[in-house]
């Protein structure tokens, strides 16, 4: 226990690097500090941030990143301001994660503005809470900054905790989360660490495969905000804006007609009864940008055929529906593309 404190002489040889890492260590919390934590009314911090920023400014800042989500954002803000945790639900790629991150960043109630966890099914409870490294603790004492590696539930004190894809969280880690939420304390090998935080979770709807049900008690502590797939006009705006962003450094632009076809194609698929999981906005953006960049590499103008190829390649793996084989799916998508082409041409003439 005493060994580390007396610093062995040999350490002096690496003075500079030692000094640097010492400084880094200073930033890590010590267990004794963590145990002295005071409660924080996070919802007050949020309310204060809303007051200071003003609703209008928050919305205009959000608009620089995401389009058409103003109402949803206000729903999110109002529940954070009363200390209610939120679950953002919606199909793949409609901006759930981005919304959570952007709002947390705009509010900036702490530094860093939020702690994010990408949930996965093999996550253990200690990965959320953190644990004591016995080896370090024995050598350097429990209070050495490296003796306790705090997990996100501890780090999130006074902050917003983003739990991305919470539906992938297995029941064990759900229990750890629930305990932190209802008791405001995280337990680590007998130590009790205060932790107040607000959760913004994201999730795909339950009908998607590979998800766990949220436990009843956990679900009861959350409100659900649903993000719908944007309507055609908003979608076109998003596609145009984001794909051109991607192509900016190449000095080319997406021809408007290609955007129109893509928008029509995606809208058709989203409404299609045969399709359970439609294409995401993200895949549409990339398909559109890829078709243009590909033509750019080959030094020619992008064609409708380029777009067709890219759409198929980008979407065939994510789209799911009533198809007996991959081949059938492809053919169906191709058929839909032709349909979209006709519709787009017709609207374009007007």
């Amino acid at each position, binding site marked *: 226990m005493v060994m580390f404190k007396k610093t062995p002489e040999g350490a002096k040889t690496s003075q500079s690097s030692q000094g640097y890492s010492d400084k880094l260590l200073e930033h890590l919390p010590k267990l004794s500090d963590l145990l002295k934590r005071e409660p924080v*009314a996070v*919802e*007050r911090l949020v*309310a204060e941030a*809303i*007051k*200071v920023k*003003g*609703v*209008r*400014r928050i919305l205009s800042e959000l608009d620089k990143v995401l389009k058409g989500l103003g109402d949803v954002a*206000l*729903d999110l*803000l*109002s*529940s954070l*301001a*009363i*200390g*209610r945790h939120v*679950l953002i639900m919606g199909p793949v790629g409609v901006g759930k994660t981005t919304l959570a991150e952007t709002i947390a960043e705009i509010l900036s109630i702490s530094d860093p503005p939020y702690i994010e966890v990408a949930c996965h099914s093999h996550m253990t409870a200690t990965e959320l809470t953190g644990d004591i490294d016995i080896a370090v603790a024995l050598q350097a004492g429990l209070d050495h900054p490296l003796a306790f590696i705090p997990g996100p539930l501890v780090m999130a004190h006074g902050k917003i905790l983003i739990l991305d894809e919470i539906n992938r969280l297995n029941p064990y880690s759900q229990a750890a989360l629930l305990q932190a939420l209802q008791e405001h304390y995280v337990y680590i090998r007998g130590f009790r660490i205060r932790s107040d935080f607000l959760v913004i979770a994201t999730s795909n709807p*339950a009908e998607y495969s590979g998800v766990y049900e*949220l436990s009843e008690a956990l*679900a*009861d*502590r*959350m*409100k*659900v*905000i*649903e993000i719908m797939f944007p309507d055609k006009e908003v979608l076109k705006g998003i596609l145009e804006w984001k794909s051109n962003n991607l192509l900016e450094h190449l000095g080319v632009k997406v021809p408007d007609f290609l955007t129109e076809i893509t928008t029509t194609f995606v809208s058709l698929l989203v409404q299609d009864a045969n399709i359970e999981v439609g294409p995401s906005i993200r895949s549409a953006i990339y398909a559109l940008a890829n078709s243009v960049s590909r033509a750019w590499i080959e030094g020619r103008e992008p064609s409708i055929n380029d777009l067709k190829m890219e759409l198929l390649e980008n979407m065939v793996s994510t789209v799911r529906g009533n198809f007996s084989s991959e081949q059938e799916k492809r053919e169906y998508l191709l058929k839909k593309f032709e349909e979209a082409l006709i519709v787009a041409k017709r609207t374009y003439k007007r």
Partner: protein
Amino acid sequence: MNLHKACDPLGLISDILHYVYEFLSNDARVIRPGSVRSYEAAVADIYVRLLLEEGIDERKFCDIVKRVGIENLLLSVETQSPEEKKVILEEAFNYALTKVMRKLEENIIRRSTELERDYDKERSTEGGRAIPDSTHDKAKKGEGKSNSLDSLSESELDGSSTTLDNISFVRQRRETVHSAGTYEARVSGEVTDFVSQESIEDESFENMISTIYDALYGGVGTVNFMNLAQLINMFVRYDANIVRKAQVLKKLERYLKVYGFSAQLTFTRLAKGERKLFEEFRRRVRGSSSEAAQMKVVKFSGSDRYPTYIITTREFKFGDSYSNIDLYKTAMNISRKMIMGKLVTNKDLVVKEYANIKSIDLVLCLDVSGSMRELSWGIQKIEIAKDAVAKYVQFLMNTTDRLALVLFNFRADVLWTLHQVRRFWKYMLYLLSYVYAGGGTNLAHALERAREILVKSRSTAKHVVCVTDGRTVNAQLCVKETIRLRRQGATVSTIAVGENSDDDLLMRISRIGGGLFIKINNMYDLSRALILDKLHLL
């Protein structure tokens, strides 16, 4: 149930969720109607969500209540088939919303009929014989508890809540609303108030209510909200003598107090630190900017058309006093002559002719819509406006002018018709002191009322002043009414207060009306604007 409670949003929201719960627990498709926690959260969440919104009308209110309510209950409510859950919740909210909205309307109607009945009763006892009929009995029974209005709706509410014993929070919320507001000092005991605990200060609760209240009812054309003039005119003719009106108000006084409205004219309610802070919060949240005192005046009339005491100008005659020379016009004439190299004669000296007008008939149309309940530096705008009108009345005391006051929210009513200020100012100040605000904005109706008043006026100088801080319904009709007023020989000025006013329309009205358009950013400048309009100074 007093007026504040009937219309206060927290009570409304609790009521709505109360009915949602009722619906869900009686529906066979529902296994679990949801946890108390989720209902509590829903009430607070909806409330704050409404606060974040900029201006709300009834439809938006319903949308938000429904959406945010469902968001909060979705994971807590369990139905036999999960696919149906959302549909069932929507049904529940639709049911609750119609029920509550209808009740709100019924309350207003009931309140007015009861007042009428009570007034009749008093009149009949005045007459010497009280008729012992059933209505009379009922009123008496009511008085046994506290007063008839209060107990009636209260007992009705109890009735509905006994069916839902589980859901006690709704009653708790009512209690906290009671205790937090200053209207009724009822001890709420150990009831914990989650709203004040978690986000809202106790002290600002009253302000909170008034803020969200005007968020709800400040919009255009919302729920029927009787203004003071409408209330009084239910008992007397609208053009009754002001003394008679004051008598009616005297009788209504105690009911108004029950509603939480008491006389206020002077700035007794000084802006406390918290009020200021709260106002600051509100301003920031709403994102509105400058509060610098500014006044912009646009003049649409020549002095000849405007009813100051000067009506015409004519050429100088020997014997005219030099102080009556219209310097502006004279200077114009002289410079014209000089340019043409002609001689200046007596004819070029223009003299203002003072008309035989002994007095001007003034009609003041005052906006008492919900937006006037907003606070300005901690004081409701309506109170500041009342103060300004009081100053105006005091100013007019030195003239022989006659003044009428029209109050308008979703409809307009005459608080008092044309009376000489010099003689009746005391009654005017008394009536004024009870003016309160709430409801939508209907300027056209106010102009129509002004015209009705002025039809009977035989004065050669008639002038209408409209004070408003918002956007009116039926802008087209406003213009038509102004044209009619103009044909009748009246002039119309408008005073726009704050950023939300419909300046284009008001400017048009002033142009057609041949009066002034005065824009002030702050209600505190209203008295200055009124007097400026009267003097027609620039």
